[in-house]
């Protein structure tokens, strides 16, 4: 069963590489034209095409590209002429720092709030959480970021509006750089997670077995932690995975707004300059990360469920 999930994810990743590669075929002109610009001589173009193997049929180029990816050879940027891996490595690290920090803050907090809202269903607290999450879910990331900048940087002057610094010499610097982007991202990611966690725990709390446990005299804390939560684990893990994949998208806008030197910034610039090898590689990395998250959530859900575990 687990093998099936992993196999499915790998198949998806393979199909995805086809889609991403096909994009380059859709692009008007080819990479050689893009590199040499408008006024290149036909000879120079032909020479470069041969050098880049662009004269080969597309399936050969696809195989070469895929093979390169698998070997860790990510190709060469059209614009900067630098290997994509060199460009990417430091940016990826920076993005991972941001995403990791956000996850570390938001996952526990969101689970706590989601469970709390479910347990205190209908209370003032629940309704407040519900309103806040609907509000955040309904609003684009950049609006939240903009408002935060307005409040914390412009009005209160507590934090810098930009997080481009890579100077982490003191804890104070780290806090200054990360607080705002992490806060913004966490807001966006948590809203999803809270709503889905609450729904999952509510479902479990409404079930007959929780009623039966209540009628056994099981105290509330044990009711939630011992009876409802084990049943909500599957949906919750799924919610966490989905929310973290939202993080993958949200990180793009946030990095741009705060001028944070991560992968996303690089990606947006690459799109503006239509630097295809770079775009393709980043897209594949993000998708692989998404699939890994979702698949591990599936696997955790299977391992947690005795009905799936003991066939």
């Amino acid at each position: 069963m687990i093998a099936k999930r992993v196999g499915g994810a790998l198949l998806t990743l393979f199909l995805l590489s086809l889609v991403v590669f096909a994009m380059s075929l859709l692009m008007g002109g080819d990479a050689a034209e893009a590199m040499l610009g408008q006024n290149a001589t036909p000879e120079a173009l032909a020479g470069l095409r041969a050098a880049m193997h662009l004269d080969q049929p597309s399936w050969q180029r696809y195989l070469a590209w895929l093979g390169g990816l698998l070997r860790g050879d990510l190709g060469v940027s059209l614009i900067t002429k630098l290997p994509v891996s060199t460009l990417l490595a430091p940016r990826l690290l920076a993005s991972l720092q941001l995403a990791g920090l956000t996850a570390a803050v938001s996952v526990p907090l969101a689970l706590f709030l989601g469970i709390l809202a479910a347990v205190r269903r209908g209370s003032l607290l629940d309704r407040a959480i519900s309103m806040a999450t609907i509000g955040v879910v309904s609003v684009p990331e950049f609006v939240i970021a903009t408002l935060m900048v307005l409040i914390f940087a412009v009005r209160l002057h507590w934090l810098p509006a930009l997080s481009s610094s890579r100077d982490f010499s003191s804890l104070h610097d780290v806090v200054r750089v990360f607080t705002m982007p992490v806060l913004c991202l966490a807001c966006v990611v948590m809203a999803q997670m809270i709503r889905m966690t609450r729904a999952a725990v509510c479902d479990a709390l409404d079930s007959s077995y929780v009623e039966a446990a209540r009628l056994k005299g099981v105290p509330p804390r044990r009711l939630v932690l011992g009876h409802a939560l084990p049943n909500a684990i599957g949906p919750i893990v799924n919610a966490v995975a989905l929310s973290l994949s939202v993080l993958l998208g949200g990180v793009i806008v946030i990095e741009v707004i705060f001028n944070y030197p991560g992968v996303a910034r690089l990606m947006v610039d690459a799109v503006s300059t239509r630097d295809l090898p770079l775009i393709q590689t980043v897209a594949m990395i993000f998708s692989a990360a998404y699939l890994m998250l979702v698949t591990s959530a599936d696997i955790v859900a299977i391992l947690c469920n005795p009905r799936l575990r003991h066939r």
Partner: protein
Amino acid sequence: MNTVPKSGVAHEAQALKIRRRRFNVSLLLGGTTIIFWLIVALVGPMVAPHAPGQVVDLDVFSPASSALPLGSDYLGRDVLSRMLIASRFTVSIALLATLLAATVGVFCGLLAASSGWIDAIFSKLFDTLSAVPSLMFGLVVIGSLGASIPVLIGTLATVYSPGAFRTSRALARNIAVLDFVTVARARGETLSYIVLREILPNLVGPLAADFGLRFVFVTLLLSGLSFLGLGVQPPNADLGALVRENIAGLGFGAAAVLVPTFAIASLTIGMNMVIDAVSGGRRAGGRR
């Protein structure tokens, strides 16, 4: 079985009336907001006081005045006029893209629900599509095809068709196993009769809610792309683009940046309110 006492019936009718009234508050507020934006998108540009590109004020980010009800933007253009035209772009692009996504998604979803091997193929296909984070997908497509409005609509529709597919497929599969569908099949009804007359009428409600939800997501993604400068391109602008170009006015709370921001929020929150009212607030948070 007709033993419910009279008072009980009257009581139930009264309760129903009250329930209607309460659900109307949310519906009314959200519905008015949506209709307001639809009207603005429809007639707005016609009643705009200035051409959207015309510089009418020497002062940039000037505050509201009787001449410029929403002040001026970073170049001294009339914010009201630009808002009117930008709303049309946002609403119409989002609506078209949602419509396209829903049509494709629902059509494929119903088809998948009625046949095993079609289901296997479509499910894998849409799974693959949804494995790319939505904004990333937009970036890849726009990176290779450029940012024109048809590309934008196509991209948005592609990103959100898997969701519509999954919803309609799941709903249709749940209904397809019910006995009344079996009875129709046993009668020898054609597949199209079963799908259109037996299954679809039961999907209308939930699919409408799903459509609304998808409209919210599409609006958010469109605004996000435009905010990054990869959506609607100058000289045209949608609401996201207005926020982007006037972001410098944020520091002094210029209407030029705040109004489009709140416009996006009111559009999406209004739609969410309508959905919540119609589906009885049972909607779980979906994926963006």
